[in-house]
């Protein structure tokens, strides 16, 4: 059985600047994989390539046994690959509920939107309380919850979380990570993009460490010591 998501030798550029170089990684169904790296390592760029919002100059992306390289984003989402982008990117002028409804925009998700909404409200009861409030008025943690809920509404097979913990209080981070593990237990495959080595190693099964656009180390998280990871992470 092949991997659910497979990224092969991706090269990505902003103008002449190469932000990702020959990056490869893969994620098996129902697993949690981390992509770890410092600020500027190229993690977000790689996620953009996977989601189709940035075209790679080289390499391939496979999802659910299909070559999705160069596909428009809306088709990729329709296949069940969803993203919680860096910073959440909630629709600030729309209500929490409307944000969630937007998550079920694809034909794949629309028919099950009601049930999905209940599920999201169960996972984050806070979102139900704030359903009518503009998403832009929420705190950082609450906005991340909207972004996660919105991704879930698409009925995804895989979700990429890009630095979900950035700028959040430790208790909030803990809570959000618990939810992510719960989603994984329910069968959703997870890609966790993180700067925090310790927390991501604790959560994932397999980790890929990126440095200056390249994947410099990878392995089962139980085989990776924090020390070897840190060395790769800082390029020592």
């Amino acid at each position, binding site marked *: 059985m092949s991997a659910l998501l497979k990224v092969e030798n991706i090269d990505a550029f902003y103008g002449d600047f190469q932000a990702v170089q020959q990056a490869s990684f893969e994620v098996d169904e129902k697993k949690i994989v981390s992509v770890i790296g410092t600020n500027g390592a190229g993690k977000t760029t790689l996620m953009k390539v996977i989601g189709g*919002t940035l075209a790679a100059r080289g390499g391939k992306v496979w999802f659910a046994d299909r070559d999705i390289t160069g596909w*428009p*984003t809306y088709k990729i*989402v*329709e296949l069940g690959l969803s993203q919680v982008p860096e910073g959440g*990117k909630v*629709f600030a002028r729309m209500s929490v509920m*409307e944000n969630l409804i*937007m998550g079920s*925009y694809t034909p794949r998700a629309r028919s099950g939107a009601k049930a999905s909404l209940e599920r999201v409200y169960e996972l984050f009861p806070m979102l139900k309380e704030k359903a009518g409030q503009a998403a832009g008025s929420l705190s950082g943690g609450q906005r991340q919850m909207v972004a996660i809920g919105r991704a879930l509404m698409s009925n995804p097979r895989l979700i990429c979380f890009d630095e979900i913990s950035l700028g959040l209080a430790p208790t909030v981070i803990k809570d959000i990570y618990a939810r992510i593990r719960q989603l994984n237990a329910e069968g959703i495959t997870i890609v966790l993009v993180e700067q925090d080595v310790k927390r991501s190693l604790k959560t994932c099964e397999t980790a890929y460490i990126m440095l200056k656009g390249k994947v410099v180390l990878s392995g089962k998280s139980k085989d990776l010591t924090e020390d070897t990871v840190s060395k790769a992470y800082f390029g020592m």
Partner: protein
Amino acid sequence: MDAIIQSIIQGLLLGGLYAGVGIGMSMIFGIVQITNLAHGDFLVLASFVSLFVMGALGLNPFLSLIIVIPVMFFIGYAVQTTMLNKVLTRGAEPPLLITFGFSIIIQNLLLYYFTANAQKLSTPLLLKSIAVTDNIRIPIMYLISCLAGVVIILLLSVYMRVTYQGKAIRATSDDNDAAQLMGVNIKRTYGIAMGISMMTAGVTGVMIGTLFNFYPSSGSTYLIIAFAVVVIGGIGSINGTLVAGFIFGLAQVVGGQILGATYQQLIGYIVLLIMLIFRPQGLFSK
């Protein structure tokens, strides 16, 4: 006194229509971030399409809408998806130039096919009015035009809140990267938004064609009205557009009544200038 009251009524009624003239432009400003310099010309194009349909099928102006509205939607969708979408990533100038080009093309095509003569969409309703008192009357066509303007704005606002496609349009204007991640096809959404904008130009174009003479070159008059309404109301604010329409209509007609009809246009522009100086973000923007 009666004359003033009469002009207030007429100004408000015209204002409702002006709001309808501005809403389509405001929408495209807010969502696609394009200044559609051809908005007025598209509106006049709709008047001519109506004229043609009325002649060919023997319909009245109102029934001609059955054809004008879908035709205008199609034109808007096509212009957006085949041309404007291709240049969106290249900064503000290329789309601006395309709309400017359309303004010239439409004017000249209309001139070629319809000559420079004054046209009017005739309806017996133009001469009818409701008497309020002996000297104050509500002209029926002004009333219908006002209602048309207000109704398209209300319908638009419901559409934007209730339907998936309407929400997708709002989401796209909030954050178009994030909207893509929800599965929204941005280019198609822009096409639909422009199509809807042109539908509003279609309805208001037909109303204006029944009220006033129009020529192939009339577009600029309505572009400026649309522009004024957008500036006064604040970009992307539906309520703002409505209020701005009323203010602009009132200023024109009441000002014209006091200072003389020849000043009617000028007064409108002065209101616009005052707004640009003292509250350039519009009445209803934060």
